[in-house]
């Protein structure tokens, strides 16, 4: 049982409204201390509490309040008030009752909701001078906090639950910058027992669309919908799809430049070099940005990990690294050292042990429920790793990944083809995500050719399957219209590039006019699509300035908003849940 200490901001100049004190003690029954005097009495404030820590109650209150269910107050004035306040709160004398319970009724039901449970258990002693450290949850008093915030508090605290340690890391860093002698205080004390991330069912209930990125009606977000969130919060992991698209293009142009059957095209190796350099720089930039996101917004990253579609994009950076190694321009290095393969595959192996294990034994994340086309990303990496290892000369390692990939690909393929009624994520209409179906067979065909040393029957079977799937999707091109552009589309280009590369490889074996023209056509298609995507990305980035919209998929609430009166599924009823490792 958490013993939160709820209090209003401890400004010495501030007086706790009498309403609040009476209400609190009546309602709660446990130690609610919110008078400045008692605050001071209980405060064993360590000196390290800096001025920035006064922000803790504000944001923590903002996001969680245990007691608001008993009191419902009009929300809109304070919401309006909040928006007016923005990030530059003045010091007002507000209307305490409204501001204390100042959140919309929907938020008042977030009592159990705490995206960062660390905030929940933490009980800082209170600072004296604006040092109100504590993890009181609740949206209460946000307006008050905003009002009372000093100029130090230019940060917007509404995003703190998504930050690492609910914003404490940021404060630590700013602490370190200002007062180097201060020690971190109790930053590990509030490790939650269970991660307070919405369950899988919640993602399915609240979101819709083939990428589960559109909010359903009646659903609300825990972050302000009308403001632009911090950039790092808007940077989804699916952006790594750009690296996938670019690096597979590099491989394509390298293949076109070096394969005998297509020598009539006279493709220079320079194209490969340029594309490769662009890809590696893009990957490096994105890796750095995402690293910052992990450092500063770990909770947001965790939510992305629990999203049934986004989790597959965690494989994307590693696959991009593998692509870069495969598409290495001959001018830079001819042979890569073998230990590099082990280095590249180790994080991939750990990730897939985790994800496939969840499929097998997870309670809420079982495959019949969460299977979707994006799962192909988790499987295709095995084949890419096998291809790279075999081209480096390794024998057993590539075979290992090929076997694992093949077994799980069969499972996934059957599951997706079945379109089980329990499966909610497959879109009823066509969507570019379906192109991921083409990825696995085309890469598997090349991988098997490299492993066995020849383009034998196994490879040809895989190649023909890939070709068939490509054709069956391409003839339905009419149905691919009318979709919003999003960065995830980059990830859907690499299967087409892969099919083109496989066709060139097939062309080496069976060199007829038909195969040559097919390879040229497929390469042109994939390059054209990548070019179009590149132009669209540029337009959205600089002209329309909406390349990174608010990432609503990670900001869904734990429960249905109170306006929906149905019961929500939040209890761990499934047997496997407690044993399921996230």
């Amino acid at each position, binding site marked *: 049982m958490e013993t939160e200490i709820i209090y209003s901001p401890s400004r010495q100049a501030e007086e706790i409204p009498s309403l609040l004190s009476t209400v609190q003690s009546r309602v709660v029954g446990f130690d609610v201390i919110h008078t400045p005097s008692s605050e001071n009495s209980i405060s064993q404030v360590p000196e390290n509490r800096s001025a920035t820590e006064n922000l803790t109650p504000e944001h923590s209150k903002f996001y969680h309040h245990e007691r608001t269910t008993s009191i419902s107050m009009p929300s809109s004035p304070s919401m309006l008030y909040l928006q007016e306040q923005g990030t530059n709160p003045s010091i007002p004398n507000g209307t305490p009752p409204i501001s204390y319970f100042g959140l919309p009724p929907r938020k008042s039901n977030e009592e159990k909701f705490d995206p960062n449970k660390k905030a929940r258990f933490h009980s800082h002693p209170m600072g004296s001078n604006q040092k109100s450290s504590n993890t009181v949850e609740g949206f209460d008093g946000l307006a008050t906090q905003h009002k009372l915030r000093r100029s130090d508090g230019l940060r917007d605290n509404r995003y703190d639950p998504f930050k690492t340690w609910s914003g404490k890391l940021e404060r630590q860093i700013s602490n370190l910058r200002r007062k180097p002698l201060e020690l971190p205080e109790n930053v590990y004390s509030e490790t939650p027992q269970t991660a307070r991330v919405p369950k899988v069912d919640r993602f399915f209930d609240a979101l819709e669309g083939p990428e589960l990125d559109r909010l359903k009606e009646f659903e609300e977000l825990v972050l302000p919908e009308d403001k632009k969130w911090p950039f790092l919060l808007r940077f989804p992991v699916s952006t790594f799809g750009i690296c996938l698209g670019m690096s597979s293009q590099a491989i394509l142009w390298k293949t076109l430049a070096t394969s005998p059957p297509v020598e009539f095209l006279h493709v220079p190796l320079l194209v490969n070099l340029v594309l490769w350099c662009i890809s590696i720089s893009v990957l490096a930039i994105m890796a750095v940005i995402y690293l910052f996101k992990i450092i500063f917004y770990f909770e947001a990253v965790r939510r992305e990990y629990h999203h049934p579609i986004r989790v597959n994009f965690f494989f994307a950076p590693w696959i991009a690294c593998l692509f870069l190694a495969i598409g290495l321009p001959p001018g830079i290095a001819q042979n890569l050292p073998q230990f590099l393969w082990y280095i590249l595959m180790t994080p991939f192996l750990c990730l897939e042990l985790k994800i496939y294990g969840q499929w097998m034994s997870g309670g809420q994340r079982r495959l019949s429920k969460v299977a979707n086309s994006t799962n192909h990303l988790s499987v295709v990496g095995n084949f890419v790793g096998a291809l790279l290892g075999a081209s480096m000369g390794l024998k057993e390692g590539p075979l290992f990944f090929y076997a694992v990939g093949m077994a799980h690909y069969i499972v996934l393929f*059957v599951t997706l083809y079945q379109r089980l009624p329990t499966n909610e994520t497959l879109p009823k209409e066509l969507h570019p995500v379906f192109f991921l179906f083409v990825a696995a067979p085309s890469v598997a065909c090349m991988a098997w050719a490299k492993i066995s040393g020849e383009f034998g029957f196994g490879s040809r079977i895989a190649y023909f399957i890939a070709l068939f799937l490509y054709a069956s999707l391409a003839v339905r091109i009419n149905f691919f219209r009318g979709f919003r552009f999003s960065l995830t589309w980059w990830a859907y280009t690499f299967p087409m590039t892969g099919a083109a590369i496989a066709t060139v490889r097939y062309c080496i074996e069976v060199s007829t006019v038909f195969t040559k023209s097919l390879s040229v056509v497929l390469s042109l298609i994939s390059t054209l699509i990548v070019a179009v995507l590149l132009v669209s990305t540029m337009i959205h980035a600089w002209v329309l300035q909406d390349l990174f919209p608010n990432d609503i998929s990670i900001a869904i609430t734990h429960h249905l908003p109170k306006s929906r009166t149905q019961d929500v599924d939040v209890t761990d009823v499934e047997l496997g849940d407690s044993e399921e*490792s996230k």
Partner: protein
Amino acid sequence: METDSQKQNEKPHQSNNSTDLQIMKRDCLNKETTSRLSLLTKFHAGYFRISFALCGQALLWKTLRELSTDARALRPFVHILPSTAFILLWSLAFLSFLTLCLLYIARCLTRFESVRAEFQHHVGMNYLFAPWIAGLLLLQSTPFLGPPNRAYILLWWILSLPIIALDIKIYGQWFTRGKKFLSMVANPTSHLSVIGNLVATRAAAEMGGKEIALCLFSLGMVHYVVLFVTLYQRFLGSNSLPVMLRPVFFLFFAAPSMASLAWRSIVSSFDTACKMLFFLSLFLFASLVSRPTLFKRSMRKFSVAWWAYSFPLTVLALAATEYAQENE
């Protein structure tokens, strides 16, 4: 006990539940005279895991002792196992097998209703294969009976025919009988039917019956593919297996290891397909071992289900031995 009582709770026949409860009540009153009766009540086919484990171990020791000395790395192992220890182990395995068989026959004779109810259960029905698999393992590891021996062939037929008959019954049920569709009854113990086929394959290949071996192998593998996909989909979620039976998850990697061994005995060398099956098994093993929370609840109290850990690990070790031998 918990497993048994859980199984009983899930039985479709309520009458058996009450029958057994009555028996147990009576047992409590007359302890001495009915002690054996209560033993039979508590006994169920899951106890055959014990003989699986021991027979598997005997087979492993035999394989290790008979390694060809080309395997440089394994040469030390060849000599550390004295033959007397092996004979003792084999005798222990044989005795346990015999005891369990006798107990189970006694149970069939006296408690036929509960036996029947047990085999209607989706977990219990897979343990129908258990005695035959254990017998085949024992046969393969016999120190004094080699493949060319006629007794060996006879024993093989005696032990394999029931497996084939059970195949027809259970695999047929998977896609024809409404209540027993695979999607409804699939659980990790279903691997036992596949393992039964594969063990029979290996024994057959070693005695020279290549066609029979291939037939059983294809039968086992086809159903393994279907089972593998179904289990991964986890249509039923966690409801298909009681918590105490979590150790049977280890059967996930027992099947591909056994398949790898079976294929190796058919083609007489550890070729690519064997390697791929072995690697798959290794991966599944790593995947299960890195999820200790899955087994935490089943480890709180000792139960005979713990014996289920042993056989898959033994089979994996066997496959690894063959792989190491090949790579030398």
